């Protein structure tokens, strides 16, 4: 079933998708944690982070365009840090060692940022809205946090659809054709758009209150049993996290 999340991100087709929703979320978090813990200062740490990200991507098999998009976005956001090398407290000097030391700072940012982004995107592609709900409900997450998180995801999709409708209205009314009119519409848009979003938030809040959405723990509609696949996925993710921690604690400096 394609739901709002999948319409935004695309749908992963890897073997991880057949694991239970809490397994997918937990394993994704473990993989993300492994990459964040891995040290970018060592070859082993760098290899560990990229391997974790690579294995997770293979397990989730996100759509190619989504993967490419996230890599391009990550590179666009993180590569400019290399331009800051001359501004470091101890800028690289003449020797290769000082250059290497200076390069490690933006390299660590790039490594963690890019692998974290790729893992997050891959995880989202194997979780539908219903899966996310099920995962959060079965993990020890405070119920208030769960309901708020789920509503944020649900309403974000609604707002994106509304944005699409506004864009279509702009196109139909000739506001997308460029020129002065387009700029005028663009600048007046927040004055129209923001009150609309606030009013919608008020109405959704009223509906949540009326339907007792926050009165108790959020309801669970489906229960998927954990199987051997879940054990394998969780075991691999835990192993990767353990390896990253070990390399960080006892690896070469």
């Amino acid at each position, binding site marked *: *079933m394609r739901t709002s999340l999948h319409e935004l991100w695309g749908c992963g087709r890897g073997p991880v998708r057949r694991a239970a929703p809490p397994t997918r979320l937990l394993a994704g978090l473990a993989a993300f944690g492994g990459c964040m813990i891995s040290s970018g200062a060592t070859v082993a740490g760098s290899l560990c982070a990229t391997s974790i990200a690579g294995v997770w991507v293979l397990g989730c098999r996100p759509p190619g365009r989504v993967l490419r998009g996230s890599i391009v976005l990550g590179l666009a956001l993180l590569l400019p840090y290399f331009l800051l090398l001359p501004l470091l407290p101890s800028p690289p000097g003449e020797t290769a060692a000082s250059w290497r030391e200076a390069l490690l700072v933006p390299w660590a940012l790039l490594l963690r940022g890019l692998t974290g982004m790729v893992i997050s995107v891959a995880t989202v592609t194997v979780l539908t*809205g219903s899966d996310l709900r099920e995962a959060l409900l079965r993990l020890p997450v405070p119920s208030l946090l769960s309901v708020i998180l789920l509503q944020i995801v649900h309403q974000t999709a609604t707002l994106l*659809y509304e944005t699409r409708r506004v864009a279509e209205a702009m196109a139909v009314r000739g506001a997308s054709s460029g020129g002065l009119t387009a700029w005028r519409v663009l600048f007046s848009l927040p004055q129209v758009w923001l009150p609309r979003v606030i009013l919608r938030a008020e109405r959704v809040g009223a509906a949540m209150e009326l*339907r007792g959405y926050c009165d108790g723990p959020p309801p669970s509609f489906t229960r998927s049993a954990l199987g051997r696949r879940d054990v394998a996925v969780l075991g691999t993710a835990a192993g990767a996290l353990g390896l990253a921690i070990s390399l960080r604690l006892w690896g070469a400096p």
Partner: protein
Amino acid sequence: MSPPALELRDVTVRYHHEGQPILTGVCFALAPGERAALLGLNGSGKTTLLSATAGLVAHEGEIRVAGDRLGPKTAGPIRDRIGFLFNVPEDQLLFPRVLDDAAFGLVRRGAAAADALAQARRALAALGVDALAEAPLHHLSHGQKQRVALAGALVTEPSLLLLDEPTAGLDPPGKRALSGLLASLDAAMLLATHDLEFAAGLCRRFLVLDQGRIALDARDPDEVRRRWGE
């Protein structure tokens, strides 16, 4: 003798403390099972009256549902007896899957998930949208969302239904089906609408709001038509 399903005594609502009231001194009562239409021009206060009845906006005066006075402490239990349809249905749809949303009211009241889902399927079927049970909400048209929201409101078999523009976005067969379904229910209902023909087919009482006051409380739809024409 059982108390009225809904009773409003001298109810006034204002959104700003010093501002002009949206509703002024509204008084009426609905007997159990009575169906009344709430008519009026745009901005006459229909939606505000329904919202006040569900305790969503502060009011002066007295609102009672089945004899229980609406207040901060009683709002929760009273809402459990009310089925509410918002005029923008997508605002009240809180789950990514149609079936989950329709079943939510039952699960919240302690029903087992399997029973709730089965009952939700029946409610969706009664409104002709059971084929959409597994569909993501964002794929539905306005009329389909309207029916799904209504299924969520009806599934708990409330004793009082507050429906804000229930026919908005429905095609003629949808309107007929809705009218038949609502007529088959035992619940008292107050439906805000501009659709006088729909209201005349379903209701035996017509309350006309004009600038926040009940301008007409009639049993004869022709009388309303005459006044509406003015």
